[in-house]
């Protein structure tokens, strides 16, 4: 008995759930374990769009930045994938070049 939310125009993106996944990966060793051993089942527990899923899987740090993930969360996700700091910064720059401006969240503050 799940209501279809698309019809409400409520769920075009799910930035909250992308950030929740990353937050939990940062904070919860067991989620991190499952990310290693049981990734797809774990990802199913979040409400992610195809674009978000792909960005998480690749990982495409630049895309995640453009999707609006807060850097205080994102840097840990990059660190989990062993990005040196400079590469993390560069990945965000490359993301903006490739995909355009940040679309949502904190870094769009002045565009609203």
């Amino acid at each position, binding site marked *: 008995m799940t209501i279809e939310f698309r019809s409400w125009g409520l769920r075009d993106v799910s930035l909250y759930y992308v*950030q*929740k996944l990353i*937050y939990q990966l940062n904070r919860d060793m067991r989620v991190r374990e499952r990310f290693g051993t049981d990734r797809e089942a774990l990802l199913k527990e979040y409400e992610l769009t195809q674009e978000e899923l792909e960005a998480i899987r690749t990982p495409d740090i630049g895309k995640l930045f453009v999707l609006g993930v*807060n850097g*205080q969360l994102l840097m840990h996700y990059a660190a989990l994938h062993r990005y040196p700091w400079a590469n993390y*910064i560069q990945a965000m720059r490359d993301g903006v070049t490739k995909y355009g401006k940040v679309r949502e969240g*904190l870094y769009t503050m002045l565009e609203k």
Partner: protein
Amino acid sequence: MPLVFAGVCSHAPGITGRAHLAEDVAEKRDVFYDSLHRMREAMEEKDPEALIVVGAEHFANFFFDNMPAYCIGMADFYEGPIEDEEWLAIRRTRIPGAPDISRRLITEVMNDCDVAYAQEWKFDHGIAVPLHFLTPRYDLPVIPVNINCQEPPLTPLHRVWAFGKALRKACDAMPERVALVGTGGISHWPCTPDSGTINEAFDRDFLIKFVNNRKDELLAYTDEEVYRDAGHGGFEIRTFISIAAATEGATGNLWFYAPIPIFAVGCTVATMTVQ
């Protein structure tokens, strides 16, 4: 007892974690560290029984599923830092809390402001870095306070003022000697492509308003202006402003300010006179 000590200082992981990468600015770095040590000594001189640290954590404990404008710790003990010990160059440890003082503080503050309380709290660098300098033996009970400075909706600055005043009122009403330290960056752009940028002019202008405790000027900042000129990291001016409010009417002394890019923040140490 009336509040015994009030001050502010910067936090940033680089301050401890990248100390060895700051050799080219070693003198500046060491004067900064000295200022923090002097701040510890000035605080210790007042023999506080507890230290309230007003910080702005970075998704260590608080997430968008329940993001409190204000939260005050009420735990027996805290732990931190959550970051890698080598990376931050701070050993993970337990830090004693002051649950009884916390409970009375929260109860009193709640008469004016609406806070969350927390019986568990893992410190990130936002509190761990200041404590590393201010209570290096972790022998002073700590009460952590958080102001959401990460993502809007953010608490407006006039409420930060009310909060700082409420903290002060609660401290003054207590039999214990309590110290109060705010910690935040001024301008900075953490974890984004602009990371490392520091707007020295903004910082110095803000600090003049701060040490002179010019309430109207401090409360006149808009979030948009801060975001534009001081970055999203600049939202952390809330922590400094709460200390100005707690010492309303008094002025302060800027002990140290210098942009140190490898620390990714304009490094600040200041105290406010407690009257």
